[in-house]
């Protein structure tokens, strides 16, 4: 089973971003590396960014290609990759929508934070199947960084 390894402080940074953005959606990058042999994504950094949508920000988010390019450059400078993204679902379950599926690629982790009434209710991580038919949930494993 696929697994997302993330430190409690990085996970907290993402969920706090989600709560602070309520009732709008937030978004950001998971910077790290994916090991195909073990099917483990290790998150090394969280990179919060602005939701670039001008309207419908309560149920849509957008990160422009220019921001993706900048994040990719930052990740590469650290010897890492964009390993996935996180976003929030205000007053909505932490499950991918049809819209999420239409706008995703396999090979990445998609963390969704459900925020109910301003409080974080649930956090789950998903990966798109190679045939684009469905998202499969992956385990979120909280792990302290190696010292």
């Amino acid at each position, binding site marked *: 089973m696929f697994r997302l390894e993330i430190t409690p402080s990085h996970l907290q940074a993402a969920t706090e971003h989600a709560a602070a953005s309520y009732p709008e959606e937030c978004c950001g990058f998971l910077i790290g590396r994916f090991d195909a042999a073990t099917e483990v994504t290790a998150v090394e950094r969280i990179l919060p960014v602005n939701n670039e949508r001008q309207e419908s920000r309560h149920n849509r988010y957008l990160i422009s290609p220019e921001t993706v390019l900048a994040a990719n450059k930052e990740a590469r400078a650290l010897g890492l990759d964009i390993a996935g993204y996180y976003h929030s679902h205000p007053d*909505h379950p932490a499950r991918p*929508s049809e819209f999420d599926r239409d706008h995703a690629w396999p*090979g*990445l982790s998609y963390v969704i934070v459900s925020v109910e009434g301003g409080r974080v209710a649930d956090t789950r991580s998903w990966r798109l199947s190679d045939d684009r038919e469905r998202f499969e949930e992956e385990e979120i494993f909280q792990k302290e960084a190696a010292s």
Partner: protein
Amino acid sequence: MSVTIQIPTPLRRFTGDQGDVVVEGTTVGEAMQDLTRRHPALQRHLYTDDGALRSFVNLFLNDEDVRHLQKEATPVAAGDTLSIIPSIAGGAGSAL
């Protein structure tokens, strides 16, 4: 003529782990067509069933978004580099 297409990391599993794929074509559209001919598993992740480029998939020709040029009809020259850059979109809606 030969142009190089840079493949984003998550899609390299569909190109045999190649990060750069050299293709032939005289326009962006032809170069992309040659890419998906060489690596058919990429097709569904870049194009809709109707054959249109997915709305979140952006093509940059030497660092310029082709939507600001002539889109897929933009001519390419030998040695050009084409990058596939996603914009990231999503959000709550009808949950699956």
